[in-house]
């Protein structure tokens, strides 16, 4: 079998030359090149499942919100029957945006230019001046609706793809779904958004954020080291940062589709809370003592109905706490230590929407469980806003790093330098690990991010 090379860039470089599979290196020019960006829009953002939000953002019939799939504006709408649709926010008549609003409620979307009207499921309704038939007779009404994407809801999350006959979301998530179920399908009533997402611009290529999301635990120690110096992980013993270094231990899960999860050992937190060695405690005792973030001890009841015993074991031992879904998603299910010794959860999900080779839109949803008591909800939301997203004391340091990487990729020398993923696991699954996927134990390594690039490579070199 001959190796796929993908397209050639204008200077003769093949896409396949950008990734050195043997050396686990990626050419830095991938982080700024316009041509590469354009191919990504077609072969990645035009092909795979993209995350657009959560159904709790549009609870009522007729509710809609404007979102983006790549640079395409789309309308995410709940129709009169309650079903969720995603359609291109472009009037098939002359290309005007159908809605310019962030969100709203309507059963009829009317273009303000010539008045063509569409139902909340995107079907064409009609054009003004009916007796003149201004939409013409050359195309039937069924051809004049808004372009519809294929939609799947998973754990309330709204996903869409332009690849109408491609793999299902379940196939796309593959083995990692077993872990995502612990996050998005753990409670009976489910999660809800705390409000609309924060949105802001970072002048960086979307992949600077995308590849980091594939479980780059390592950067935490340096880029976010204030957490160990004076933040939530500062140590009482005066050994600065040591608590943060311990957070690097656990297991990392990755997948051939570039999804990744960091499963961090809860043992130290459980010892602190209970004074007992976790091995002396049952799965239930551990979950009651330190419930999953956003849940209370009482809410743990749900887990015994929604999760398998194997999933419960992982949730009480090394639950997924941060990670990504290919290509541009990061999730955070954080157990954050408080000054008074308790733990408060933060649940967030971001997408890094490409806005050209040198710009991304950071979209940050904050979640709570529908059942979370109001007081705890408030605490979680405030903590999340203070640490993550726009003013997040943790994530703001990332937002200042990615633009520099993007600039580095522009220099005649810099563009030919490489991103390196050569810290390789030599461990395998933790003993007795009941979960599927590519799993390795120990200090965080580069494998998950490397798998992210391998899937990027696979999609970018795929036959048209």
């Amino acid at each position: 079998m001959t190796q796929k090379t993908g397209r050639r860039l204008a200077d003769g470089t093949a896409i396949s030359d950008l990734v050195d599979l043997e050396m686990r290196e990626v050419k830095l020019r991938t982080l700024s090149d316009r041509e590469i960006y354009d191919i990504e829009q077609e072969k990645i953002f035009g092909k795979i499942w993209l995350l657009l939000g959560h159904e709790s953002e549009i609870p009522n019939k007729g509710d809609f919100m404007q979102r983006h799939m790549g640079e395409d504006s789309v309308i995410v709408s709940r129709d009169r029957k309650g079903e969720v649709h995603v359609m291109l926010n472009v009037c098939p008549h002359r290309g005007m945006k159908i809605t310019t609003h962030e969100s709203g409620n309507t059963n009829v979307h009317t273009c303000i230019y010539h008045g063509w009207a569409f139902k909340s499921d995107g079907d064409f309704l009609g054009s003004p001046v009916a007796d003149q038939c201004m939409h013409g007779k050359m195309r039937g009404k069924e051809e004049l609706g808004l372009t519809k994407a294929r939609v799947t809801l998973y754990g309330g999350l709204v996903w869409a793809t332009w690849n109408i006959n491609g793999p299902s979301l379940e196939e796309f998530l593959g083995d990692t779904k077993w872990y995502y179920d612990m996050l998005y399908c753990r409670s009976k009533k489910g999660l809800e958004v705390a409000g609309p997402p924060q949105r802001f611009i970072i002048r960086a290529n979307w992949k600077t954020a995308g590849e980091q999301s594939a479980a780059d635990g390592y950067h935490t120690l340096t880029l976010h080291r204030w957490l160990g110096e004076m933040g939530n992980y500062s140590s009482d013993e005066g050994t600065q940062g040591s608590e943060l270094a311990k957070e690097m231990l656990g297991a990392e899960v990755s997948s051939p589709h570039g999804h990744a999860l960091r499963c961090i050992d809860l043992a130290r937190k459980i010892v602190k809370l209970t004074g007992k060695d976790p091995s002396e405690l049952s799965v239930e005792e551990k979950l009651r003592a330190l419930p999953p973030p956003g849940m209370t001890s009482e809410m743990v009841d749900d887990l015994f109905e929604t999760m398998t015993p194997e999933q419960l074991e992982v949730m009480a031992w090394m639950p997924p706490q941060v990670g990504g879904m290919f290509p541009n998603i990061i999730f955070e299910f954080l157990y954050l230590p408080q000054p008074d010794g308790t733990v408060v959860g933060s649940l967030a999900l971001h997408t890094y929407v490409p806005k050209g080779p040198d710009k991304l839109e950071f979209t940050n949803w904050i979640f709570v469980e529908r059942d979370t008591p109001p007081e705890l909800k408030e605490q979680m939301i405030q903590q999340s806003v203070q640490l993550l997203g726009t003013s997040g004391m943790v994530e703001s340091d990332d937002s200042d790093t990615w633009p520099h990487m993007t600039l580095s990729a522009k220099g005649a020398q810099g563009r030919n330098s490489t991103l390196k993923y050569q810290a390789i696991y030599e461990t395998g699954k933790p003993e007795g690990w009941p979960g599927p996927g590519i799993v390795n134990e120990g200090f965080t390594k580069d494998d998950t991010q490397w798998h992210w690039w391998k899937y990027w490579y696979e999609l970018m070199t795929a036959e048209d």
Partner: protein
Amino acid sequence: MSETTFSVYQGLGEPVAIGAEVYNQILQHYYTEALLLDNMKLQEWGSMLAEDLVYTVPMRHTLDLASQSKTVIRTVMHMDDNYRSIMGRIMRLCGRSAWAENPPSRIRRFVSNVQVFNTDKSDEFSVINYAMVSRNRFDDDFFDLIPCERHDKLRKVDNGFKLFEREVIIDQALLGTPNLQIFL
């Protein structure tokens, strides 16, 4: 009809005349505040904050004319702080590793349109003012501009005023600056 009956003044007390003694003191307070912040004297700025401070930056949404009252989003906000968290931010920013502002941005805060109102308490004042915040980082040949309307509450203390409430209404739905590790 007095101008203070216009709907934009709803909920506010009697206006303090422009040029009145208290007005001038408050204007001086804002100039001092801007000068301290623009010169990265964050701890000194912190001494101008009251311990019951509520400091928020809501999000903005683009909605149609009829829905303008709903364009300020306070469920999830861009900043949602209190005295303790602001002091934590100051400590972080003055530490060794707050990379989002190290090296720091060059920032200029232009405060204008200051309008002061009395409240039920003789030592507390409501203030509406505009701030034009410009931010420049590294070699950027452009400025991030963050114009905003600030709804403040100030309490008179022995040697000046302390801020105990600030809501910053920004003008972008999609914020154009990469983070808010700066104070508005």
